[in-house]
């Protein structure tokens, strides 16, 4: 059952990304990558094999819909692989939180904020570095990374409030 609700949630978020968030660009630099919330919210007990495969599929779906072949697939694969180490930067292994999907409700505000910010920053750095292979401009890349991280983080924080309060 948690798997089915996870898949439904993932589909809703991918659809929202493709239909709404892909069309939002603030100041020509800030792009919201809301779909990485799906990777963030995978229960930490899932094996790395499963989460990497799921990450790749999520990235591929976004790539197909937004004509960026491979960019998001690669970044999502790496992010899903790095998810567990990043999570354990902030949560000790012996704490009994690991079976639940990471959210404000399960981790508390400060830990979740640190976790979400690190994941978002990692993702934005990957995506815009890959983009920079096509057209390289250092200051543009830097402003894209900083602004997109901030923008994505704000939306993901709001999204987390919606999704984790629903299940109370």
């Amino acid at each position, binding site marked *: 059952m948690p798997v089915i609700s996870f898949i439904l949630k993932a589909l809703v978020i991918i*659809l929202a990304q*493709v*239909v709404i968030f*892909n069309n939002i*660009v603030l100041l*020509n*630099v800030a*792009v919201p990558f809301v779909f990485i919330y799906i990777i963030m919210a995978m229960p930490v007990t899932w*094996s*790395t*094999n499963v989460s*990497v*495969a799921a*990450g*790749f599929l999520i*990235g*591929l779906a976004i*790539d*197909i*819909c*937004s*004509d*960026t*072949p*491979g*960019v998001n*697939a*690669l970044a999502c*694969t*790496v992010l899903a*692989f790095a998810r567990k180490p990043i999570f354990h930067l902030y949560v000790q292994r012996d704490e009994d939180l690991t079976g639940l999907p990471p959210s404000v409700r399960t981790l508390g505000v400060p830990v979740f904020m640190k976790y979400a910010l690190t994941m978002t920053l990692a993702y934005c750095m990957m995506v815009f570095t*890959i*983009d*920079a292979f*096509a*057209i390289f*401009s250092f200051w*543009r890349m830097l402003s894209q990374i900083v602004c997109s991280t901030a923008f994505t983080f704000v939306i993901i924080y709001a999204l987390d409030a919606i999704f984790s309060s629903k299940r109370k």
Partner: protein
Amino acid sequence: MHELFSFFIRWSKWFVFVFFVALSCALLFSGNPYQHHVYLTSANSVASGIYNMRNSVASYFDLREINEDLNLRNAALESEVLALREQIREADARIQSDTMHLPGVLAQYNFVVAHVISNSIARAHNYITINKGSDDGIAPEMGVIDRNGVVGIVNVTGPHSARIISLLNPHFKLSCKIKGSEHFGSLVWDGNDPTVALLEELPRHTVFAPGDTIVTSGYSAVFPEGIPVGYVMEDQRRHDENFFTLRVRLSTDFTTLSNVQVVVDSLRAEHIALQAYDTDKQ
């Protein structure tokens, strides 16, 4: 044998990770966008279905500006029609003695009107998806324009949708000239500002002033001659050895793109046959 299995199981996450990274890299570095399969682009049926639904709602949002643009265009065409009528009247008088046939420049071209269902401007390589495809007579390498100017070139087609390489994509180079002169250069986007592109390889002796109109040269057979592309911005010449590079303000507003026309060249088959003939000879 047992040790081999336990080796694979112990290191399985690295194998899975490397496998998916390799798969992503294969997609990422597949290079030429013409080689992408239609299922891997936004012209596939699921993605274009989603975009069609979205567009059926969102296309109402820009109607006010589009209406204004159309009114302006209508007025311009109206005055052009009057001017042409005048010319025809004069020509008719002369034609009495002379059975001359005057083919229009655009007679060989038809236009298929399509709606943009997906568009991007902020990426390094931007693409546009439209809701007409091969069933409507659209084929790869056809030009796409809108009411203000050049938009892009058709890249991949599905039966009811097609993907266009936007002018805002470094894969797309457009042969252009300054209106009223015959010197031509190559227009390419530099990846920064969706309203500005660069006109490169313009011969040094070209005469121009800021505000001059840039139009298509008509050398590529993808676009008819004289379709507006943009305007020369302030006099910012970058000196190369023998060539100028100009900054051009694009006349097409890519942020509010909604209706476009695909240029169908009725002589296209003939052009392709001629080019093939040439290469066969060599």
